[in-house]
């Protein structure tokens, strides 16, 4: 049995133990319940990481699925200069020491940069220095394999254009920080860009991600693809031709457009000079845009078929309507309208007027139609308004209201002066003739296709009936005679095929008058009996040839390539026999 002293001692010890225990319990309760959330948050902060997941930008592809623009990864190669020092590398299984100078030369060789600049950066005292931006995958792999501890890499998305300048004028380009700066890259940015995602996860002390802790906050959505109507092979061939044309004519620039008649699809829109989107800085700013959509100029005689078709459509003329076309026609108010070439008065039909490209002839026949009606037809042909392509910076050209035409403008608009058009608007007019009088809006972008293959097609404006089918057919017959019998038109013939077309030699406005140089063009349709394709070739400010003879070789070459590409069989019928003159 315990005596009283022992009992008291035991009781005191028990009380002390109990108090200590209670203190522990209180403290534990404070940790576990009262301050728990604070500690939990603090712990979470230490190990939890929130990371943005960059969406991969979509591709731009041609109608055949060939990639014209895509996204690759490049690496910024950086160093921590304070930690830079000699390294020991495993060379063929042998540990070899390299001095700072030696390794700088080696790195410079891989990065293809000046070794002195690399060494200078390596001897700095800062904690960061960039050795090269946008190193290629090959350079990155070579450097990474060296396992140099003070060398580190930042991966980033970079735009890559595998076909270089093919369709460069259309595709546009991006800035080094990934902003879309021009062309389809910019106009279709909402389709291409996608949405960045965000996720949180916990990581260990060694920065390893703990899989079970990954929590997606915002799911990443990669960009969709833009599908063009362009055929990149045809585009390349057309660019080759216009580049050769610029060289041959010593022109400022040249363009070639190929349109599929029934759909309005632009199969090629070639320009020279143009831009390689991989290196947009390598060319002058004016060569980075697309003149096909953005540059409007007075088209000249290429508009005569519009005046002729209008006169036929309103019943004021037929392809055989007679006219005497003098070299110079005096207007009632005393001014003169002249033909380009000196000639005696010619007895021409309307077909002959187009074949000879007579200004005096078209003014007389086209003038039978009142100004308001002619203006309405010009509007219906799409003049003075942007095409449905909606290319960035697209010009609508200039077509002033007939109410603002002075007496001379009222006449000269019939042969393409006093009005300005972009090359695509001109090509669209000929698409209307070829498509039985129905104008279909040109189409450059088929649509936006997501990663699952679902296509969101581009909205296409409803086709517009401009002239009757009969008028369109008669216009086509007349245009065929331009190629058969026209002095310059003859040079646009393609052996085995019936071709319809029109020449255009336009003076270029400079200041208050016209300059010395011309915009020469030829727009043709083949095969004429069953029109499939329109090809429009323009050379601007040609210095070596000042008429459409400068444009027809390019037209022939591009149209031949089109007919070959789409395996169009040669014509088996002959054109109608329409007189071009009368006695």
């Amino acid at each position, binding site marked *: 049995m315990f005596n009283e002293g022992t009992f008291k001692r035991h009781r005191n010890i028990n009380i002390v133990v109990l108090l200590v225990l209670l203190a522990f319990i209180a403290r534990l309760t404070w940790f576990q319940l009262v301050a728990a959330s604070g500690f939990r948050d603090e712990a979470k902060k230490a190990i939890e990481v929130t990371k943005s997941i960059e969406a991969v930008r979509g591709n731009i592809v041609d109608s055949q699925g060939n990639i014209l623009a895509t996204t690759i990864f490049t690496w910024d190669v950086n160093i921590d200069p304070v930690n830079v020092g000699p390294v020991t590398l495993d060379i063929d299984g042998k540990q070899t020491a390299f001095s700072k100078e030696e390794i700088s030369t080696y790195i410079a060789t891989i990065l293809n940069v000046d070794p002195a600049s690399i060494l200078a950066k390596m001897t700095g005292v800062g904690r960061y220095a960039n050795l090269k931006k946008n190193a290629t995958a090959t350079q990155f792999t070579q450097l990474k394999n060296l396992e140099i501890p003070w060398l580190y890499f930042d991966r980033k998305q970079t735009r890559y254009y595998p076909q270089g300048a093919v369709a460069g004028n259309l595709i546009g380009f991006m800035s080094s920080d990934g902003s879309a700066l021009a062309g389809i890259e910019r106009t279709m940015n909402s389709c291409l860009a996608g949405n960045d995602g965000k996720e949180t996860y916990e990581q*260990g002390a060694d920065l390893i991600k703990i899989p079970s802790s990954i929590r997606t906050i915002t799911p990443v959505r990669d960009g969709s693809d833009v599908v063009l109507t362009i055929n990149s092979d045809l585009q390349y061939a057309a660019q080759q031709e216009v580049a050769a044309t610029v060289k041959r004519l010593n022109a400022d620039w040249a363009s070639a457009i190929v349109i599929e008649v029934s759909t309005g699809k632009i199969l090629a829109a070639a320009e020279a000079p143009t831009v390689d989107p991989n290196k947009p800085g390598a060319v002058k700013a004016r060569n980075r845009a697309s003149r096909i959509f953005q540059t409007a100029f007075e088209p000249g005689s290429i508009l005569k078929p519009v005046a002729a078709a209008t006169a036929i459509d309103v019943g004021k003329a037929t392809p055989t309507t007679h006219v005497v076309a003098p070299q110079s026609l005096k207007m009632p108010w005393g001014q003169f309208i002249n033909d380009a070439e000196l000639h005696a008065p010619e007895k021409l039909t309307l077909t002959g007027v187009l074949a000879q490209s007579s200004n005096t002839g078209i003014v007389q026949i086209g003038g039978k139609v009142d100004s308001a009606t002619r203006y309405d037809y010009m509007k219906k042909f799409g003049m003075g308004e942007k095409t449905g392509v909606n290319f960035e910076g697209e010009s609508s050209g200039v077509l002033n209201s007939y109410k603002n035409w002075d007496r001379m403008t009222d006449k000269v608009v019939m042969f393409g002066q006093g009005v300005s058009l972009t090359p695509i608007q001109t090509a669209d007019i000929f698409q209307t003739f070829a498509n039985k009088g129905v104008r279909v809006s040109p189409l450059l972008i088929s649509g936006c296709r997501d990663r699952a293959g679902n296509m969101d097609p581009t909205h296409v404006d409803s086709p517009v009936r401009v002239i009757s089918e009969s008028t369109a057919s008669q216009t086509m017959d007349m245009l065929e005679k331009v190629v058969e019998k026209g002095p310059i038109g003859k040079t646009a013939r393609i052996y085995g095929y019936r071709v319809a077309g029109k020449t255009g030699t336009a003076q270029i406005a400079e200041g208050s008058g016209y300059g010395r140089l011309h915009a020469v063009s030829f727009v043709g349709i083949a095969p004429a009996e069953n029109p499939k394709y329109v090809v429009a070739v323009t050379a601007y400010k040609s210095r070596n040839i000042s008429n459409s003879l400068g444009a027809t070789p390019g037209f022939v070459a591009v149209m031949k390539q089109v007919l070959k590409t789409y395996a169009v069989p040669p014509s088996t019928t002959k054109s109608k026999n329409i007189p071009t003159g009368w006695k």
Partner: protein
Amino acid sequence: MSVVRAIQPIRPIAPRRHLRPVPSTGAPRVAVAPRTSSRANASAVLRALSPKIIVGVVLIILLNLFLSSLSNASIYQISQLKKETATLGTQAQIINQQVASLRSPQNLANSAMALGMVVNSNPVFLSVKQSKIFGTSSPVSANNAGVSNNLIANAVLIAKSNPSKFAASQKAQIDVPTVSSVKTNKSPVVQVVLPSDGIPASPTH
């Protein structure tokens, strides 16, 4: 006033007593419980369970350790596989860029030209259906050849075909059958059947 009237004075209620005296039975009211019964049972149960509890706890700890090490190993494996995926992705990018460069029209045009090829701008079409030839074939001359040399820039032309190598390999292929030491077995001559409305088809199996 109405409030005052509504409050009734509280009447004191006498507490009801529910306790009644317990009738005496003569037996003692309190008995001493046997000291051994419940404690002995408890300790017996404890004695029986404690090895199992200990083993169970140890097993749980071991299982936890095992799962933890397994999970850790998986995490590192996943991390390693991700690194390998990235490396392979980089290699794939290098190869894809080389292929893109080789198949670019600029490279093909340069290679074709180096091999002496020119663009034939006067093609001839064969219609199998109509058994007709459209167009007249003519040799390509400097006057009617299209633009053959590449004029279109491409800054990412990293890989280029080697036409001379290609020509050499073609020659090597052609040379193979001419080696005198190679014995050839002559195939039986099979007549090619010409269908009436199709491309002549070889009876190859």
